[in-house]
């Protein structure tokens, strides 16, 4: 009965109802997008960091991984000490550098020196993984961007070099690399050409100064709960004074700090969209109540309780909001894809990083917030409707 009456009231002014639903839908879409933006970055970054299960990053003291060109000396001793710990399951040392590519369309490529068995930086998409061999020709795994820019294919051989002398046109060291596979590199931007080669080979390429260096190491704690990971992190920092150990949580905090602008923007725009939804519903329901003073007075006169009128008017607000929220859900998902496409163009971001990530929990929470806000928006006009002096309203209605 109550539902039928509320539906009939909303249908009485279809244009007005439609416009209000559209307004709430846009507000709901904006709110959903902003919630996805506020929570998505952390979730995306967390899943990116935990892609291969490594919960800890070990970087030169005071730096973030690959945030500077600083490297860690004495890498072998540090990695051995970490591997000897019963709490650590695996350690993957990484050295990053730029290597020249001789007789190629591009002069250089970013190179990653990795231990193939424990590496957590890429996943083979086509071809085979590299092997730690001592052969004259090295094994390498290239990114799609590098293959495209070189015009090369899996199985091709390229020549990498370091220590170039531009005047004499010679290089201090050079090696031939056979591209055994194509890899999807998790932490490198799509537009950056990358070549992964064995760590020992890269160290040799870079010369004596890099003989025992690494840019970064990733470590996996045996126990995956945050307290245990934090315990391992503290132990590493205590025993290795020249490095900074960063847990996934710390890294997320630091990235959130850097990208706090987006979170705050999301908060402000989310609050504005909630406000718009609230104002729209309250305005519409207020007007509807003012128009139907006589009708409400009749309902009261024939015995409808104050609570009944209150619920009736609030139901109208809730129905409007619900319809808007359902429409807004679809609009929000579509617009989030659009906005994510724009932000993913940010230079230097890993290919698999997303700003807007769908999370059912966060989405329902935000839309429930809007529904509650819509219901509350109807509360004041509902109270006014329920408090109408019956006799006066009936007389006004009768005499116009």
């Amino acid at each position, binding site marked *: 009965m109550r539902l039928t009456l509320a539906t009939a009231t909303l249908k009485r002014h279809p244009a*007005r109802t439609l416009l209000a639903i559209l307004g709430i839908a846009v507000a709901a879409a904006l709110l959903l997008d902003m919630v996805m933006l506020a929570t998505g970055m952390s979730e995306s970054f967390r899943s990116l960091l935990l892609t291969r299960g490594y919960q800890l990053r070990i970087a030169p003291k005071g730096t973030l991984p690959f945030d500077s060109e600083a490297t860690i000396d004495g890498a072998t001793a540090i990695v051995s000490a970490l591997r000897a710990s019963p709490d650590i399951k695996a350690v993957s040392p990484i050295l990053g550098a730029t290597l020249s590519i001789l007789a190629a369309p591009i002069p250089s490529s970013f190179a990653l020196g990795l231990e193939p068995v424990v590496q957590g930086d890429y996943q083979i998409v086509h071809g085979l993984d590299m092997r730690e061999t001592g052969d004259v020709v090295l094994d390498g795994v290239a990114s799609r961007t590098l293959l495209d820019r070189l015009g090369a294919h899996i199985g091709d051989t390229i020549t990498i070099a370091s220590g170039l002398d531009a005047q004499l046109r010679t290089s201090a060291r050079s090696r031939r690399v056979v591209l055994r596979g194509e890899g999807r590199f998790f932490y490198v931007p799509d537009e950056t050409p990358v070549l992964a080669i064995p760590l020992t080979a890269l160290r040799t390429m870079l010369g004596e100064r890099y003989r025992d260096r690494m840019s970064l190491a990733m470590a996996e704690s045996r126990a995956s709960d945050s307290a245990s990971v934090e315990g391992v992190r503290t132990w590493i920092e205590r025993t290795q004074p020249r490095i900074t150990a960063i847990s996934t949580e710390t890294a997320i905090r630091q990235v959130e700090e850097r990208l706090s602008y987006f979170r705050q923007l999301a908060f402000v725009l989310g609050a504005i969209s909630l406000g718009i939804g609230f104002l729209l519903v309250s*305005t519409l329901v207020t007007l509807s109540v003012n128009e139907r003073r006589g009708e409400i007075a009749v309902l009261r006169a024939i015995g409808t309780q104050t609570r009944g009128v209150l619920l009736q008017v609030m139901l109208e607000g809730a129905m409007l909001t619900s319809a808007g929220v359902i429409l807004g859900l679809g609009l929000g998902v579509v617009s989030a894809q659009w906005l994510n496409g724009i*932000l993913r163009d940010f230079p230097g971001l890993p290919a698999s990083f997303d700003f807007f990530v769908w999370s059912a929990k966060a989405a329902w929470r935000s839309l429930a917030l809007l529904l509650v806000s819509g219901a509350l928006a109807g509360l004041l006009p509902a109270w006014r409707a329920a408090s109408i002096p019956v006799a006066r309203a009936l007389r006004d209605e009768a005499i116009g």
Partner: protein
Amino acid sequence: MTVVRSARMLVWLLLCSASALHAQQPVGDTLRSPTFGRRPPPVRGIAIDERLAVDLRLRVGDTIQIGATAGAPTERVHIAAVYERRADPAEVARREYRVRLHLDQLQSLLALDDRVDRFAMATRGGAKGGTTDSAVARINSVAFGFRAHPSRAVAVASSRTFRVVERFHRAIGIITVVASAVFLLCLLLLSVEERRRDIAALRLVGLSRTTVVRAIVLEAALVAILGSMIGAAIGWIASIVVNSHYQAVYRTPLTFAMLTPGIFAFATSLSLVLGVGAGALAAWRLVRTPPLALMGR
């Protein structure tokens, strides 16, 4: 104070492209160099960024030790200048400290002999007449391990962050404009419809439909302009708050929010168009209804 030992410090050493005073070891020093043969003072000056100066309480004239890595040989330098960072959106979220050194000084600290990351060149003909392009092509045809890029290509690449942020803001702007437009349209339609009895009375006392429509449209236009003015004032205050907050958070002189005459004109025009449109639509619907029906008879 040993700067390199500070755990909090990440010094992003920048190659100073300004004219370098050459060190005792004449790295790259040639007869054509304007500073050929000049010897640097025993303690050389460096410039540090304001953020580093504040955090480590350094002042112009202080003497510090700098080095590439902890444990590596250091050099004693004095702080010759404290500089403010550029208002660059691409760097706004970066928290590391910066130091500017003489080119040969940094080469020596990093044991990089005669190496540079990049250098800038000016062609004789300027950017006109394809001089730059032909110079770039000639350099690249003989380049070994490096590549020349025209400045405009570098500018396009380095402004990508800025362009992405701009596109994102524009997209968010479109969504908020749509939301505001629907909201405004809805409110104006409702506010006109609420006055059905007044309009009926005006019609009954003999005012023509056109006069009623004109009056309502004028009223809607005034409301829209007044609303825009108030909105602009709120926006201006909000931009002050936003700028002071984010400039403090990111420690940058970058302007984050700005109310320009163009933005104000766009917002006011949009609001006016929507107001007039909504007013005209609502008024036309009402004047077509017989006055007695509007009265509820």
